[in-house]
């Protein structure tokens, strides 16, 4: 009977107990001020700061950590940042100092470090991620280098096609025939915003070469596509630079680093904030959020 009682009690305890951790400051009881019969403590202020500012703080700190660990060419980035600073100063002229001051920067150095350099470092972080996961992105984006002409008139498009088959220069013909699209050699991917006929042609193409006139009946447009490269390994850095700013890539990069460095939270309220807004940054198993001891 005694053993049975112990067994039942243990099962009851197991099923009911357990509590999620909540991190607090070591000086929570320190008073900041007293008004009437109310003391306002550092602990109270900490709770409000934690509830609304902690996830952003953590992501900022974590990003700084990733930059410190992953980026090895800070000197080159600083040189680039100083170059950009000169461009910005030329743009704003005499107003530059007052503008950065109005944003809270005490000096040019602070502005460079906290704005320009930081942006370059975050971009570099994305580049490192993309280099480490290049094949995944090549398979997903299917990049190709190509030139495109766009016309409103079928005859003009066909004349342009004939000229190109005779060996004339693409950009020259585009200019002569008043093509309405950019004839420069650019990288296009499966996620580029392109008219359907062009997209379909590019996605299917496996070799370089000039297309026949592609007809977009819906929009009454006519296109010529000259694919100049289907081997992205020959322009890997260009490809990476072209997608490094994609929001999807930025988020994936951060998720990758949070996982790589085994990001672990020890406070349930902050965990819930991340679960709601940044679930891909979490590495921990699904937490039981039922507050048992309330």
């Amino acid at each position, binding site marked *: 009977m005694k053993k*049975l009682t112990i067994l039942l009690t243990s099962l009851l305890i197991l099923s009911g107990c357990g509590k999620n951790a909540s*991190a607090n*400051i070591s000086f929570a009881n320190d008073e*900041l001020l*007293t*008004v009437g019969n109310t003391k306002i403590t550092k602990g109270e202020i900490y709770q409000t700061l934690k509830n609304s500012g902690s996830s952003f703080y953590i992501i900022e700190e974590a990003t700084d950590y990733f930059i410190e660990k992953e980026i090895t060419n800070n000197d080159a980035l600083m040189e680039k940042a100083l170059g950009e600073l000169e461009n910005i100063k030329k743009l704003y002229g005499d107003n530059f100092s007052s503008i950065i001051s109005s944003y809270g920067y005490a000096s040019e150095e602070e502005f460079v470090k906290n704005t320009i350099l930081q942006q370059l470092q975050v971009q570099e972080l994305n580049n490192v991620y993309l280099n480490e996961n290049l094949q995944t992105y090549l398979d997903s984006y299917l990049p190709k280098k190509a030139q495109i002409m766009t016309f409103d008139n079928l005859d003009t498009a066909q004349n342009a096609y004939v000229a190109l088959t005779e060996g004339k220069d693409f950009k020259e013909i585009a200019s002569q025939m008043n093509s309405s699209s950019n004839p420069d050699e650019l990288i296009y991917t499966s996620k580029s915003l392109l008219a359907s006929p062009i997209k379909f042609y590019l996605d299917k193409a496996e070799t370089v070469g000039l297309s026949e006139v592609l007809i977009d009946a819906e929009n009454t447009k006519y296109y010529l596509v000259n694919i100049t490269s289907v081997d992205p390994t020959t322009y890997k850095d260009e490809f990476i630079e072209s997608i490094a700013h994609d929001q999807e890539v930025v988020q994936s990069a951060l998720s990758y680093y949070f996982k790589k460095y085994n990001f672990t*939270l020890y406070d*349930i309220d902050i965990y819930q904030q991340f679960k709601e807004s940044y679930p891909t940054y979490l590495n921990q198993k699904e937490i039981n959020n039922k507050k048992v001891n309330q």
Partner: protein
Amino acid sequence: MKDNKGLIKNYWFVGVIALCLVTILGYFVYEKISAGEFNYLQGKKVDGKDVIYTIGDKISTADEMYEVLYEKYGVERVYNALQKAVIDQGVETTDEIKEQAQHFSDDLIQRAIQSYGTEHYEAYIVSQLKNLGYTSLKDLPQYYTVSLKFNQLIEDYVNAHIDEVYPAFNEAFKPRMVSHILIKLADPANPTEEELALVKSVQTALENGEDFTKVAAEYSQDGSAANGGSLGYMDITTQFVTPFKDAALALNEGDVSDLVLSEFGYHIIKVDSTNLEELKQQEQFYNAMINNDPTIASKAVWNKAQELNITFANEELETALKKHMGIGE
């Protein structure tokens, strides 16, 4: 053996119940383990301090996060906490305030359900409340109670310091109570004979000394007719069409305007009152006072805090707080 048999015979029912309980509990625990419900977030301490997170070899404590966030946002949060404490202790929670708070709370919930659906409205409201130091939907009436008591605090402060705060406001904002009679015109550039006849009737009635309120109730062609033409409180910030606003602000108390043409038709405007005691009955009056001088709200808080006796742990906080509140030494 004989004793055991007797025991089983007498207590067999207890044994059956115990077996059922063990089975049910065992199944319950098994289900919870399978669902990961015993997976609770573990805490961590380093040198006696609570850790917020770790990443790679970096350990970040709650103390460190507090120092960084306090520098950026601390004074603002202290002010919010002070404001709440002052309101809690310094303003009575009347039945009227409780009722209004509950009404506002119910209204917001209904609107949130319409916007976000029954599954998500609560999360939306709670996320807004958390920024204000509250934790759950149950706190919503409390939030409104505090807001209403805050309004009361400001009203009491303004009324007690009216000679200081009103003259500049009156000159800048020209607050007044106004009424009008509207005769609609289908094409304001080309009034019809019928429309002009109506205008004439109104003008004749007023010239004959008929009460403005009665004439408005009889002839005015907008919703204010039900209130005898009263549009209530206005000042320079009120969103009236320009010709109407300019004309209304140029009048003195008791004056009636000539015909004022706007995109809606002809107006005849009357300034019912510029009397301070009447203006103080209007909620927009106090809101406009705060728009004119945003420090009124923090002055009201500071004034009451001093009445309640406020003391600081250090001078730096007091200086920073006063600077944040926009009040002098």
